[in-house]
């Protein structure tokens, strides 16, 4: 175990079913896109080590099912999140319209210390699809993000790997800042006590 402090950043990815959450995550972590990912059932996460300004951090990216009714059981792992990513499909207005309720739901369930400053990032996915199908304009999305206190916004394609790296770099940065701001509460001990039965603050979930 390294003696220096390990940082684990917990990131939750939310958005309607089929907007491409699983695809984005896999594009970022595994650098590939497959047209045959299955619809997500339950929850899963991927981890990735990244350097943020010379700091080595581990990102834990949580992927959940998009259909609303499946959220009610999954809220357990919203807690302790350092950043929340809201994804919509630029070719599907409905998925954009629901962003607000995804955000509200997250804030209620995760109940972060300071909801006002809790970092979100919005991703408008599937920009590779032909222009004619697009139903949500960049302007519209930007307006929304401004109104919510300046949420960073990226237009991405999981399929063509457009902007995915950049978006997640910002996500990592936001999450790290959030983590450090809540650091005093020692969300994470210096090292994981392997032999000692872990007490409640040893678990970030």
């Amino acid at each position, binding site marked *: *175990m*390294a003696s220096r402090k*390990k940082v*684990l950043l917990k990131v939750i990815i939310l958005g309607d*079913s*089929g907007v491409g959450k699983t695809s984005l995550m896999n594009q970022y972590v595994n650098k590939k896109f497959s*047209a*045959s*990912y*299955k*619809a997500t*059932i*339950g*929850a*899963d*996460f991927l*981890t990735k*080590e990244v350097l943020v300004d010379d700091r080595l951090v*581990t990102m*834990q990216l949580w992927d959940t*099912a*998009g*259909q609303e*009714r*499946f959220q*009610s*059981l*999954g809220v*357990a*792992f919203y807690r302790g999140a350092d950043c929340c990513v809201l994804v919509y499909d630029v*070719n599907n207005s*409905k998925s954009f319209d629901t962003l607000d309720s995804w955000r509200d739901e997250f804030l209620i369930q995760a109940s972060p210390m300071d909801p006002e400053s809790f970092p979100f990032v919005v991703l408008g996915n599937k920009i590779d*699809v032909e222009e004619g*199908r697009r139903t949500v304009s960049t302007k519209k999305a930007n307006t929304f993000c401004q109104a919510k206190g300046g949420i960073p916004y990226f237009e991405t394609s999981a399929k063509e790997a457009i902007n995915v790296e950049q978006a997640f770099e910002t996500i990592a940065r936001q999450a790290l800042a959030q983590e450090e701001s809540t650091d005093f509460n020692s969300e994470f001990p210096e*090292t*994981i006590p*392997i032999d000692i*039965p*872990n007490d409640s603050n*040893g*678990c*970030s*979930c």
Partner: protein
Amino acid sequence: MAKQEPPPSPPSPTASFYDMSDDEEDDYNTIKHAKSGRGVKLLFSKSKVYVHPSPSSKDNIPGFIALIQQKSPAQTSANRPTSSSSSKTIASSSLLLAWVPESSLGDAYDTYVKVDLSDSDSPPKQKYLVPPPPTTTSHSSAVGTYAFAVPISEVFSLLVRPPSLGWWFGSVVINTRAGDSFPALFFHDSECQSTILQRKKLARESFDISSDGGGMFWGGDEVLRWLKRYVTVERSGVDNTVYLIEPSNADKVGFGGKPASPEPGQSVPEAPAGAAKSSAGGAPFPSRRDGGMDPVTKALKEARWNFLEKLSQVTTFTRRTAQAVAENPKMPPQMRRLMRNPEVQTIQEEFDSARLYLARWAMGIAEQSERERSQRIWTAKDVLEMEESEVGDFEILDMEVGNMSMADKRKPVMMDEWEKWFDMSGRLQITPDEVKDRIFHGGLDPEDGVRKEAWLFLLGVYEWNTSRDERQVKMNSLRDEYIRLKGAWWERTAEGHVTLEENEWWKEQKMRIEKDVHRTDRHIPLFAGEDIPHPDPDSPFAESGTNVHMEQMKDMLLTYNEYNKDLGYVQGMSDLLAPIYAVMQDDAVAFWAFVGFMERMERNFLRDQSGMRRQLLTLDHLVQLVDPKLYLHLQKAESTNFFFFFRMLLVWYKREFEWLDVLRLWECLWTDWLSSNFHLFIALAILEKHRNVIMDHLQHFDEVLKYVNELSNTIDLQSTLIRAESLFRRFQRMVEAIDKRSNFPAPSVRQRKPTPASPTESNANGASSGADAAPQPKRQSVGDAVAQGIGLEKQKIISPELRSLLSRKVEKLDKAELKEHGGGVT
């Protein structure tokens, strides 16, 4: 296989020395044990042979297995045979096979160690006398101390399980002629000095790679070797883990020799397929374990075994360990490459993933070895004897039920067997329970089309008591109905919906189905193609195209959405439909079969998730009752929401097993043979299988979740089914015992006789009524410790959730409930 055979007869100098001096009974009484006036002769012993009385390794008791010679009652030094040209003249009744705990030995401990370490090729030149251990002929009389000594003449057979590639300790179970079994003795070879020395020696001596040398040698081999010096030991041809001791002719016919002619799919005692053909095919002792393996495979296996043995000793995977392992020149190149893999290196640095990774990997190799093993048909005994039953003694299910052996029952039902069950008019001639019993245990043949027919019964499309003509009539009207339902939504897509809200809902559902079908089982050839243009130019899949089966899937799901508006289509349903459609390949038939399936699955998809919550809660209760230690651990890991089973329960393991296994699993579950919630016992079986890894390595919810998610496609179905059945029986008996105690405070009496019918206590509680209660086949049990174990369960109570597990009746939602919680359009 030199060491399995009896040692070569003369002209070996050792053998002749041995014959002439060692088994002579002269001077029998010259060396007496210090304390007791009388002693018995210790012929062989082996140290670090453990009894594992509880799931916790802390409770393991180290001891010696020993071969002891006592004075035969009928034989005095006066009339003993004078020229013993063969050691086998010693009466088997004067030989004892014993196990004694180290702690009980006192002064004799040194003697046991000395005998253990003396060169095993020749028995001790000196006679070592030790105090006689208590002689027993059944396990029950030895309860408490575990120590036993059983006359060889009373031993019927030994169940010998070699160590499994580093995951399990090798073990030996002694079965007596009276039908009793002693607790399994586990050989902790890595602690046993004599085994280590013998291994080294064998490795030095065996230059010939084809001989069974070095790595795989284990303590149990030694025991068999000693025994063969004195008695006839014959390996059963029926079950190659069984060694018969002094078998009678009748035994030989019944259990010995070779099976007449192995039918396809029947027990194959040879090495896994893909290995080189065994040369020992016709030998009376079929080559053991790896006998049929080619040398390269074997060498790899042995190296892997040694490696894993080391690995299993480290509880925390450190970078240094990994480095040392990677540097080890003995390491197979594949393994070395794996360890140097950058991904693995990264993982080592990550505090939480390291444990997870180690756990997953160790288990992966165990699974692989299990798959190799499962080239043959499993019996309950295989599974239960192979796995150190960590939740205590498993019950061995009866091998003979009705007039069909369990092995036969575990063979799939073929079309001709199925057809024989019906009379001329196509009416079932046997009881539905008999059919279900068969399908539960054996499944249906995947290829001959019997599923197409049988699933319609299992899913309630056809009643069991109908004639062929009646079914034809029913199917005709169902086809009409399907066309009508399909037409209804089809029309509305053209004409629009009554309300705007309904219109929205409809569009959304259509989109959802569209997206999900294109993400469902596309690796199955049936659904893989994109060979026809998409009918809807507005679909996101318009460019990529579609195929007729995906289009059929969409139609069926939209029709279901129409048929059950209270619920509508919910994600996960496409996973449930795909296998049914693939088997039926007829949309109307598949639709109604799916409707039948959905009746029991509806509760999984409710808007408020109450059905899923209830199942997760039931699982929580079940683990708490059956494996409280594991439960405590999960509690510490904040994992008792059991959310990590969500996916498995929602779509019935569709994502965890391979396609063909899913079909087999579902038809098994559809029978409701033991419980209409048998899927929860599958969950328990999976959990139990991994409980050690979970308890040793996983400490947080996220680790548990990740580990369980990644079990996907690694789980062996057949052994899981058997374990689940056994766990169900265990659960059933726990409930009975607890009920019994609360009804009569009298001490519980061990019940060894078959129970003809379900006892009435459980019925009195209302959860299961006569017809619904699970059938109870007669059974034998090893140690019967379940009944004893529950003596400790005094404080336990059976929640209504748990009690419902005993019912075979499928819980279906009523219409009102569905309307309220369904979250559909109505």
